[in-house]
Each structure stands twice: as structure tokens, then as C-alpha cells.
């Protein structure tokens, strides 16, 4: 078939998308695509050559991200994106390593890896699509599901308290912590760009709707979720991580909360362990 020339200019992110894998698997009304687009926009905005990036995902609807970006990308096992990414980073510290995954993946099954990578200040950009549930498996309760919210395994409401993810990240040692919603596409892209360009463990939580498996069960239409993202959020950079629980009745705080400079895991390893004649820093200073 002849290419449709009337379609005008190619999509600005076309060179970063595996067009041969489109259509993607995400449901209509799902927020993951928007988060992904902001992520690609950020990669593009950095002006860094694409082969200096890699993306690693775990398993889940969000975990499919790595499958659609047209760079070297890895769709690993459930919960293990961070240790896979850490292996890459420690072996090739010059690469920009982005982890793109879901809240279940990163904070339930993968929670241990998250806190340790944050503690070490592993130089990764970790983007967590937080849809408050396990989307891919049909909407079971997650470590992020609000108290009393319904899920397929908590028909009478979630009896447990969810994580405050930015607080967890900060307490674990993350040196950059931010939160946006998928609706704040511009802020989110700029935030991801900033995270990529800095060194250290950067964590960005992105609130995003799962209308099919969370919204429906909690009697919330996609548009209502988006309205909450718009009306019931407050941008407050530098807010204390202790005040960041997700409660739309009180208002959910967005922004950049933490941005600290600290040597990264790979830098400290090189400095302390590699013989002096080998480190480039030393070579330069001589």
C-alpha cells in the first residue's frame, strides 16, 4: 500500500517508537501510554544519542513499556527490573538506564530491590506507573491500593494501609524524588529529563488510571479520575515526604520533593576499588 502522504508530518516521537509493534496492548482510557509518551519526550529532549540509553521493565501492563521503545530494551521478570538495570549500570556506567514499570512490580514483589538500589544511590531513573492496582492480572489489591478501596481480592475493601512511595524512596536513600500524574504531561517530561541528566537514584511516581480493573470496581470513570488529577492535586515542590500519602479528599501533593547530590554507587566503587592508575579521574588530574 502506498504510504499515506496526506497524513502530513510524522509523529515527533516516531523514531523512538517501535512502529512495527503498534497497536500497543494498553486499553482505551489507560494512562500508561501518556506516561510512556512523556518518557519518550524526555529522552528526546535530552539530545543524548539514543544508543546511550537503555530501558528495563518488569512484568505488568506498565512493564510492557520496554517493548515499545526503539532502543536496546529489556522486558525481564516480575519485580526484577531494578537488579537487571543495576547489572547494566555497574558494567557500563556511561549508559543512561531507565526503569519503567508498575507499582506492583516495583514495590510488592520488587520492593527489596527498590530499597537497596536507592540505598546505594544506583544511578538509575526509575519511573513507576502507579495505577493503585495490579492491572495486568485483573485488578487485585496492591501495596498502593488505598485503604478500603475495592479490588478483585478485597471485595469488601482493602483492609491494609498503602505505601507512601516518595517517603519510602526518600527513607531508603533516593537522591531525587518526584511525583506527577499522567495528566501533567509537560511537567512529567521535564521532570524525567531532569532525572536522566542528573546522576544518582531518581524516583518518579506517576499516578495513572486503570479504568478497566480499578476504576470500574471503584465506580470511577476515567474522566472523573482525570478531573481529580486536575482539581484535587497541589503542586508543592520541596514538600516533606511525610505529607505525601495519596488521598484525593485531602488533596494529593505533586512536584519535586528531593534533589540531593551524592556520589553514585558506580563512582564510589571506581574510586575505592579500582587501582589508581586505572581511573579516568586520576588520569585527567595528572
Amino acid at each position: 500500500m502506498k504510504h499515506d502522504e496526506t497524513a502530513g508530518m510524522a509523529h515527533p516521537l516516531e523514531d523512538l517508537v517501535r512502529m512495527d509493534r503498534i497497536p500497543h496492548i494498553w486499553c482505551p482510557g489507560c494512562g500508561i501510554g501518556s506516561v510512556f509518551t512523556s518518557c519518550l519526550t524526555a529522552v528526546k529532549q535530552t539530545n543524548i544519542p539514543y544508543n546511550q540509553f537503555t530501558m528495563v521493565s518488569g512484568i505488568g501492563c506498565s512493564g510492557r513499556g520496554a517493548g515499545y521503545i526503539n532502543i536496546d530494551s529489556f522486558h525481564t521478570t516480575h519485580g526484577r527490573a531494578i537488579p537487571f538495570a543495576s547489572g547494566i549500570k555497574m558494567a557500563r556506567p556511561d549508559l543512561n538506564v531507565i526503569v519503567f514499570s508498575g507499582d506492583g512490580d516495583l514495590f510488592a514483589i520488587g520492593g527489596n530491590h527498590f530499597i537497596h538500589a536507592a540505598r546505594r544511590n544506583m544511578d538509575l531513573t526509575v519511573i513507576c506507573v502507579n495505577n493503585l492496582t495490579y492491572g495486568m492480572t485483573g485488578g487485585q489489591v496492591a501495596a498502593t491500593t488505598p485503604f478500603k478501596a475495592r479490588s478483585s481480592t478485597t471485595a469488601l475493601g482493602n483492609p491494609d494501609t498503602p505505601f507512601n512511595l516518595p517517603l519510602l524512596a526518600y527513607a531508603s536513600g533516593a537522591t531525587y524524588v518526584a511525583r506527577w500524574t499522567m495528566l501533567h504531561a509537560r511537567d512529567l517530561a521535564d521532570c524525567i529529563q531532569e532525572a536522566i541528566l542528573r546522576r544518582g537514584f531518581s524516583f518518579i511516581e506517576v499516578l495513572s488510571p486503570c479504568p478497566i480493573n480499578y476504576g470500574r470496581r471503584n465506580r470511577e470513570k476515567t474522566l472523573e479520575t482525570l478531573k481529580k488529577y486536575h482539581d484535587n492535586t497541589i503542586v508543592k515542590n520541596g514538600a516533606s515526604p511525610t505529607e505525601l500519602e495519596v488521598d484525593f479528599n485531602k488533596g494529593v501533593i505533586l512536584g519535586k520533593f528531593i534533589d540531593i547530590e551524592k556520589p553514585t554507587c558506580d563512582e564510589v566503587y571506581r574510586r575505592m576499588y579500582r587501582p589508581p592508575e586505572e581511573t579516568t579521574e586520576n588520569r585527567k588530574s595528572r
Partner: protein
Amino acid sequence: MKPQVLTGEHFINGDEACAEGAIAAGCRFFGGYPITPATEVAEQMSVRLPHVGGTFIQMEDEIAAMTSILGAAWTGIKTMTATSGPGFSLMMETVGLAIVTETPCVVVNVQRAGPSTGLPTQGAQGDMMQVRWGSHGDYEVIALAPSSPQEMFDLTITAFNLSEKYRTPVFIMSDEIVGHMSEKVVIPEARKIRTVSRVKPAGRKDRFKPYQPGLLGVAPMPAIGDGYNVHVTGLTHDEKGYPVMSVDTQKEMMDRLLGKIRNNLDDIILTEDYRLEDADVVLVSYGVSARTAYTAVEEAREMGLRVGLLRLITVWPFPEQRIRELAKRVKAFITVEINMGQISREVERCAGTVPGFTAGHHGGAVVPPDDVLKIAKEVLA
């Protein structure tokens, strides 16, 4: 700076010899987690790697350790981890990821007696079926069993060479006894050590397929950043690496994964014969148990019994053909191993009508040669 290969004669234990073998083979990344009796491999790697431009990292658990070596392997380098039973169990899901993504790496299991925490400081060979079948799904593995510290050095190099050649994880199935035993280990000159590195792709980057079989049925493997823009997934995938949820693609992928091992058995399988020419009874053994079996052969011969030994250096893929051939002319097989009958099942499966026996042990010590002799005497009575 220390040399990469510590040429010379050393008196070191099996774990240390394994680490030196890895360095000599070109391993430049180790992700680990401490566990008796494998800890010394990690400790030695932590000291040695930074001096050869490599990286050691102690991860938060064995799942992370195993996963980190896969990520590092995709940067184009040789990687390894080492563990024992409990850690090996935790690694199993990631072993499947290594197999299906065709990621070369070496996994060392210095076996201790199980199940569960078992006897942490005492040897066994109870994970021989776990290494074969422990991850879910159907697949082939390559597993080697060193019988001495010298072989911990030599076979670690062989393991890296096979993993690079076949783009697959290769297992060193050692045990506490060999791991902690100190013996003379001769490390040759660097130029006399044969090392193999994965084939890199060439040609048009936009047409490259990371799973299109090349030589020996193995696809060339690019590194991150080479510009091939590969996608790597644990989902069933086509030659391009893209997920395709179909029975046909599953078959194609499985044929490729199984084929690259099954079609190259002669290249992969290493065995050693001892006094087999005229043997009536064949002892089949591997790892530390082969030392017991060797003694049993000597003692049997002194008594005038025609007993020989087939030592499996490669345990998986199992040398089926060899057992079938031997079965045509021998009276019995006795498998000597520190478990209650794992590899003996394989031997018996291939032995046809020739009877097979197990000289086994519950774990924690070697099989006494007398146990082997007793069976041999009964068989030949």
C-alpha cells in the same frame, strides 16, 4: 597491578580456583550473595575483579545476584554468580530468563546437603535434577561437575567458553568438599589458555534479528549501545525478539533453544574413561563422588573384579549415547553420587535391560568406597 592470569603453581581451595578460572576466562562482572560453602568464590572475585577492570557487587539476595549478571552480560561482557542450594532455589526463575533470552553467563553451585537449610557446611550432590529441571517450562542446560580444585579452575574456563559459544547459562555443579578442599592447582600461561567470546553481529543494523540462528544454531549477540536496538523479553518471541503469542512461534523458539544444545552434543559432552575396556561393571560418577568411584575401581581390580569408571565431566546434557553403547557389553551400572538416586535414574533410563544400582548417600559426606564394592560384589557373584 596484579596480572589477569596468576600463572604458576598454587595451593588453593576449589572455590578460589573457580574464581581464578573465571578471571582467566575473561569474566569481568560478578553479582553475588554470601552463602556457605560458596562464599569464598565471591570473596575472591571481590578482591580480584577490580584489579582487572571488572566489577564485583554484592546484591540484596540471590534473585538480584542472578538478575544482575544477565543485565551486565548484555553490555557485552562475561559474567558469573556463585551460590549453594537455598540461593540456587531463589535463582530458578531468572535461570529461565537467561535461557529464553539466550544470555551467556556462568552459575556456580557449590552444593551442600538439603532440603532447605540442611547441612550448610557439608557436601552433597542433591541439586543435580534441580539444575536440569528447576526452572519452569521445557529447556536444555549445560552443567559441568569438577572433581578437584584443578578442575574448578579448568572447568570454569570451559563453562565460560561453552556459555559464550552457545549463548546460554552454563552451570558448575560443584560441592562443599571440592569447594573447600585445598590441592595443588596449576595455572598455565595466559597465552596457553583458550578462551571463546560470543559472536558479534555484522551487516545491516536495521535488518538484524537477535535470535536468527547462525553457526551451530546460535544467533550472534550484540551489546547494548551497538546500535542494533534489540528488544529482549522473557515472553515467547520470534527471531526479531518481539513477543508473539502463538503456538507456531512457541514451537519455533523451542526448536531453536533445544536444537542448539541437542544438535551439538559431541561438542558439549565431556566424559573420562577409567579401565572401561574390559569392564563387566561400570561405575558412573561425577564431581567429588568420582574420587570415591576411582578408589572403588582400584580396590575391585585388586580383588579380581572387572570394574571400570565412566566419569561425567558434563552431566547435562546427559551422555545418553555413551550409556547405550556401554549397555551392549556390560553386566551392570552403579551410579555413585551424594544423593539418593538422581543421575542414576538417567543411567537406568538409558541402560535398557542392563540392571542399574545406586551407591548413594543422604548427604553430608562422600559415599564410602566399600558401599560401591559391596554392590559390585553382589552383581558379579
